[in-house]
């Protein structure tokens, strides 16, 4: 039975969503508090938000900042992580720095960064950048460190010089591990995107969320949370597609065979 259910693509997550909505609806009816509207009421707000030009522009604005912070973080973090993985000196330099910054909630830095860069795009993008960078650096580092020495030797014997080995052997060999960091980074990008807008209340989806909260528009609050959730889900699905396209070669054989079983 479970095999047949899993065989219909998209069915298990759909069932999980329906279950969650049902639980929400029941809980709202049992507890009956104004801070927890039933699911159907909150979902009715969705078209209103998504049909409003201002809200959509705000959401797109948030996504633009998130995309920018995320992309810049990947551009900086992957080379740093790979260099750390291949050079003890670089690792010794960056490791204490990272271990100090990693446990600090990036949103907690937001007020300080706002003092430097103001409440605009720069502060929010920087916070997103910091949030995404750390897991990506960490996993790129681990990935580069685990690259089999003999892969590099094989390339060196073909006449490949050291800098080119970094981009042509270490990078692809570490890519499956880098993707683990990128996936975590994507979630953190979404979280820091919302929290940065919660602190620098000026624009964006976080602003919609917390303005609605201030005005006790709980239906809109929950509808916005649902939108953030859907965004996260959609981005993760997209990333997973990209991952299986780029590093499908790393998928264990038994997993690839599942489709035919």
């Amino acid at each position, binding site marked *: 039975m479970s095999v047949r259910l899993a065989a219909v693509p998209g069915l298990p997550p759909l069932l999980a969503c329906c279950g969650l909505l049902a639980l929400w609806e029941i809980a709202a009816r049992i507890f009956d508090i104004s801070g927890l509207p039933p699911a159907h009421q909150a979902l009715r707000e969705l078209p209103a938000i998504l049909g409003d030009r201002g809200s959509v522009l705000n959401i797109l604005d948030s996504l633009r900042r998130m995309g920018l912070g995320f992309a810049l973080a990947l551009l900086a973090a992957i080379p740093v992580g790979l260099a750390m993985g291949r050079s003890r000196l670089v690792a010794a330099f960056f490791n204490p720095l990272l271990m100090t910054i990693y446990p600090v909630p990036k949103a907690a830095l937001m007020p300080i960064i706002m003092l430097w860069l103001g409440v605009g795009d720069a502060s929010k993008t920087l916070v997103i950048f910091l949030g995404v960078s750390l897991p990506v650096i960490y996993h790129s580092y681990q990935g580069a460190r685990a690259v089999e020495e003999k892969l590099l030797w094989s390339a060196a014997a073909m006449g490949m010089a050291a800098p080119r080995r970094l981009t042509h052997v270490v990078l692809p*060999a570490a890519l499956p591990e880098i993707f683990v960091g990128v996936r975590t980074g994507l979630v953190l990008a979404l979280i820091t995107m919302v929290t940065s807008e919660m602190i620098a209340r000026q624009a964006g989806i976080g602003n919609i969320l917390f303005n609605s909260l201030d005005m006790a528009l709980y239906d809109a609050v929950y509808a916005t949370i649902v939108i953030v959730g859907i965004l996260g889900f959609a981005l993760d699905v997209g990333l997973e597609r990209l991952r299986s396209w780029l590093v499908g070669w790393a998928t264990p054989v038994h997993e690839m065979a599942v489709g035919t079983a």
Partner: protein
Amino acid sequence: MIAITELSKSFETARGAAHVALSDISFDVAEGEFISILGPSGCGKSTLLYIVGGFVVPSRGAVTIAGKAVTGPGPDRGPVFQEFALFPWKTVLGNVMYGLLEQGVARPDAETRARALISMVHLTGYEGFYPKELSGGMKQRVAIARTLAYRPSILLMDEPFGALDALTRTALQNELLDIWERDRKTVLFVTHSVEEAVFLSDRVIVLTRAPGRIKAAVDIALARPRRRAELLLDRRYQTLVVDIERLLDSPEEGR
């Protein structure tokens, strides 16, 4: 072809103590010679191969290839490792073509040569497979083809069949000899199997337990091309195997 002079290598262990892996190794290898390096595990025989490959720097001594000192890896020496070390993100064809493309060979030419080599190692039909999808024996066939592709004059084989089951191992030994008979490259072959060393080689260098020193160099004057079935019944082959096994068992001098 290869001259190894007074080579020594010591490592620092994790506890900071010095570990002597190789001590005062000297021997020459003639062009086209098939040499096996045999010894108990931990005797530094792989380290010796890595030094000739230019992957590891010796503590003392030198290696010269055709009169030129080894300072690093180069396409004149093609390694084949026990761990295969295939590029997992490349297909069989991509792996075999890799060295050729790296050396600037045009893609169509590289592909033609790679396909010929893939057929030579009996993997036609598997060009589009990724290493993950292959068995150990197939992976090692790909690795051998990948190394042969860029035409090294010396093959450095580091226990290449050590991770394979007995049947595959025998099959690959036969295939390797067939391939070798065609162009008689110089081969340095590290193994801990006496039968394998005697079956394949012109000369077997026996190393002592750590620190690895040369205990003996045994000439294998068996006619070529060699056929496994004939050899196994050959009295001289049997004697050589037994003699070398005794050598390995015998207590070491100076201990």
